[in-house]
């Protein structure tokens, strides 16, 4: 499997190299005629198409270096290639599309199909999607491509409270209604869900992302109960977009071979996301806040919280937009991210004192975009991490430098 994927990757690279000298490949321009929402992220990517072949290729690469110090201790400078992602899309027939996203993480240590679905468009308000779907919880999960962000690291709340990038096998519906400056959209999916790793994992806390390594979810449900994900979003052309989403289901194996093992235990995640551009000064603001509720057995440790919350706010201000170093319409942005994640909302039964286990982070940064598809970025990160008991926070600071580019 790995060999096959690597072969596809090498072949796709070879073709990409040739396209610069040949007319064989042409770039498929992103469709900017319609108002795009977060849910359109999988369509809103640059693709390359070979002649009249119905298959388009694309992808992106991220490479970083980082230097962090925690309370005076550092592991020094390190370099990472956190992911390289390959997109393959095809219009099978009019109003029938195939889209996929294959991710090679950490230099190929992990290879996963993040997204592979077939979309059947029946009506703008009624489209069917099936396959491996990216659950639309919050905005980041669907809109996670590295080149779209001014920050090297993904937001903690989106990756460690919500499990971005999280996808499962399932089916669903989506649709959109637009009128003048206004568009409303919805998505609804039933898919395989989480497993009990979310409260039994090496993170020592409730951690939805602990279910991600379980690839069995692409072929069978852990407990036979579907995970439901629903999202609705509103966008006004001049104001911005706001999305409300929910994802919920049973995470434990409550029954096996007809025998009842435990009660049904739910996990529910709620999120609100928004993005907007302030007119005239072109300040881009995006954010997401989420809540996760988990029915943790009363017999289990309070270390595993039954409620988590967190979010991030990104502010990106273009400083310069002109020809720079020979690149037309280059942009220099200054950016800032504020992050907060609380992994265990609640109080200790023993003392009635607050349970901590939270992180607060501030991330200022600069980015240079020679084109909208490529970002070179430098971030400074400072975060405070407080343990469960609320002992003095571990303070970490560091600088991250890297790039991310579609190809």
């Amino acid at each position: 499997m790995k060999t096959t994927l690597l072969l596809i990757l090498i072949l796709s690279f070879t073709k990409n190299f040739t396209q610069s000298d040949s007319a064989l490949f042409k770039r498929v321009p992103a469709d900017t005629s319609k108002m795009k929402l977060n849910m359109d992220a999988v369509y809103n990517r640059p693709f390359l198409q070979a002649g009249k072949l119905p298959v388009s290729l694309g992808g992106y690469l991220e490479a970083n270096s980082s230097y962090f110090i925690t309370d005076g201790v550092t592991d020094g400078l390190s370099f990472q290639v956190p992911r390289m992602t390959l997109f393959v899309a095809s219009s099978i027939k009019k109003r029938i599309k195939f889209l996929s996203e294959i991710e090679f993480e950490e230099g190929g240590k992990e290879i996963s199909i993040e997204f592979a679905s077939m979309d059947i468009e029946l009506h703008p308000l009624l489209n069917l999607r099936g396959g491996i779907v990216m659950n639309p919880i919050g905005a980041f999960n669907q809109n996670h491509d590295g080149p779209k962000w001014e920050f090297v690291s993904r937001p903690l709340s989106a990756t460690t409270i919500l499990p971005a990038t999280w996808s499962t096998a399932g089916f669903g519906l989506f649709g959109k209604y637009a009128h003048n400056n206004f568009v409303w959209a919805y998505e609804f999916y039933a898919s395989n869900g989480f497993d009990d790793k979310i409260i039994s994992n090496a993170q020592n806390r409730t951690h939805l992302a602990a279910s991600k390594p379980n690839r069995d979810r692409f072929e069978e449900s852990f407990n036979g109960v579907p995970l439901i994900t629903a999202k609705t979003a509103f966008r006004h052309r001049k104001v911005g977009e706001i999305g409300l989403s929910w994802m919920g289901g049973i995470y434990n194996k409550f029954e096996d071979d007809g025998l009842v093992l435990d009660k049904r235990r739910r996990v529910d995640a709620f999120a609100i996301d928004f993005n907007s551009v302030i007119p005239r000064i072109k300040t881009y603001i995006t954010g997401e806040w989420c809540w996760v509720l988990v029915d943790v057995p009363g017999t289990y440790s309070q270390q595993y919280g039954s409620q988590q919350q967190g979010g991030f706010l990104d502010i990106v201000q273009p400083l310069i937009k002109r020809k720079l170093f020979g690149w037309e319409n280059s942009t220099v942005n200054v950016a800032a991210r504020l992050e907060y994640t609380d992994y265990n909302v609640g109080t200790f039964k023993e003392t009635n004192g607050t349970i901590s286990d939270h992180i607060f982070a501030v991330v200022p940064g600069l980015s240079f975009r020679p084109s909208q598809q490529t970002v070179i970025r430098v971030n400074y990160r400072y975060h405070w991490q407080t343990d469960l008991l609320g002992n003095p926070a571990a303070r970490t600071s560091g600088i991250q430098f890297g790039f991310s580019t579609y190809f």
Partner: protein
Amino acid sequence: MKMIKRKYIVCIVMACLSLLACKKTGPKAAAEEELLDGPVEGLSGQEKEQFLKGDRAFNNDIFTKENGLGPIFVANSCGSCHAGDGKGHPFTSLIRFGQYDSTGNQYLDFGGPQLQNRAIPGYNPEVLPLGARSSKLLPPANTGLGYLDAVSDADILAMADPYDADGDGISGVANWVHTPSYCDYRAQSIERNGKHIGRFGRKGAAYDLLQQTANAYNQDMGINSSFEPIDTYSHSEVDPEISNAAIHSVVFYLRTLKAPIQRQPAKVESGRQVFTSLGCETCHKAQLKTGDYKIAVLANKTFYPYTDLLLHDMGPGLDDGYTEGSATTAEWRTPALWGLGLSKNSQGGNYYLMHDGRATSIESAILMHGGEGEKSKLNYQSLSVTDKNNLIQFLESL
């Protein structure tokens, strides 16, 4: 002009970012005397590697049902109960029950001696059997344990005064315990009627750190080893869920954790004098010395733990109704006072002192002393406010 300004801004911001990230301006390490963790000085490179192995096993290894947790347990990692290697929090307390005199534990068939009050999904945790007398215990700090391990039995017995021969109202006896077969007796270990001197645990029931560690894996986390193979849930022998090498690494880590360093001793001299004048030092011995020891840097050293490693009757107020070894229900091994002032940094910003954490300040801990500590407590109560403050400052400096 506007563009030039922007360039300057960009350059300045970038320079600031680079500066902020460099090691000199990044978050500083706390001063050595402000931390409880870290190795003793003088370990060889090989010993440091073993220390790090133990550190990771102790603090990073999280047990789940897949790697052996439970099915019933108290905590799922060593670090859960010993944040920063300091004293525990009421959340991490444990309960022992069923042994109220020298006849042994009456509730072994009901889950004794320790209550595993948590369970993995699908299992029921233990509940305290009706009528069982129990004791709530907070995890003690781990620091300096190697020094305490290296004190010779003869030195411990030299501090004992079981019949109060000197008439000071303080006796002090060793806890004679049966040791498991895997214990490796220290040189010149003294034996009486098949028993040896215990020195770890709130009542000094564990002979050494191997026993303490293997027992903690078994009783606290439900992790069976070749040392403690009996599963707490099934009460039957099961295959080891942790290697001997991992256990030995943790033991080495505990032996080589540094001793707490007193902060600004010159400024608390008057408090130290009050401490001595009250008679506290009769039990909380300031200075001990180690004997020959398998880890060279710990051998034949003088150190300042403020304990005599002996049992003392602390009166009815601290009678927990539970015995271990030859300790009676009101007897407690003198806790080391070193690191006392840093306790809050591992207890979520509050003091939870005494064996069960019921004292939320140093003063309230002093006032809970009874029995052999009664006289010192009364002496404390008659102190002036200044002397009381000086004493507390001294204790906080330890």
